[in-house]
């Protein structure tokens, strides 16, 4: 048995954060019928720079970029099965959740949200597993 392992790249090269910031991971990997995305932070798709803002604005930017990433790999937001959301402060949970629900209006994926330390002054990081 051999399952293929393919690296996923966003069509918009500005969103290839691991490459642009020289980080030792790939944007995503397709394997075993799934797509595994690395944690995404708020990046301006026009410039590739970090777009720091509120929890609401960062969540919107990340999920919009995530849709692009999944679509670049032939998947889509409605194929997401599991999401992990990392927040700089759990007090802001509802601010994330209000934007989040716009992107997953029906039958939302399984999700875990954690309050953690994030880098670079960012407030939100989101990763997911989706059907390929």
């Amino acid at each position, binding site marked *: *048995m*051999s*399952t293929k*392992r393919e*690296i996923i790249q966003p069509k918009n090269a500005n969103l290839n954060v*691991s490459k642009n910031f020289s*980080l*030792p*991971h*790939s*944007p*995503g*990997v397709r*394997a*075993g*019928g*799934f797509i*595994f*995305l*690395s*944690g995404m932070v708020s990046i301006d798709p026009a410039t590739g720079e970090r777009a720091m803002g509120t929890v609401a604005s960062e969540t919107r930017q990340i999920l919009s970029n995530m849709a692009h990433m999944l679509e670049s790999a032939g998947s889509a937001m409605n194929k997401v099965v599991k999401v*992990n959301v*990392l927040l700089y402060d759990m007090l802001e949970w509802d601010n994330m959740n209000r934007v989040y629900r716009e992107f997953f209006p029906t039958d939302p994926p399984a999700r875990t949200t*954690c309050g*953690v*330390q*994030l*880098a670079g002054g960012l407030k939100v*990081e989101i*990763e997911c*597993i989706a059907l390929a």
Partner: protein
Amino acid sequence: MNREIIPAPAVGLDFRKLYGHQQSIAIRANDLIFVSGMVAVAPETGERLHGSVTSEAHRIFQNLKLILESAGSSLAQIVQVHAFIYDRIEYDVLNRVYEKYLVHQPPARTVWSVKIESGFKVQLDAIAIAQ
């Protein structure tokens, strides 16, 4: 569909037996292997090897290698990693070790800065392709 427990490849990695953790070291399901969060322990004895982010990360990768290879997979077959570190300030320290083990086409990854059990500084879990 099948779901198969991967037995610990060394006595020191049997966290269920040694430390009472109610978990398996790894599970194979269809084409994927899901490995539990791994910390720096000696595979021969299970002794906790607390150290620096660097020393713990090296030990963990060696342990992951043992586990994945015992299941017919390898580090190169990893598709996703969750890297837990005790303090974000050590992010680059982790990366220096990390990129020695996952060089070519590295897996998807998210780094979580959180509190880790038993005073460890690093914990890694992984999903890999079963070969």
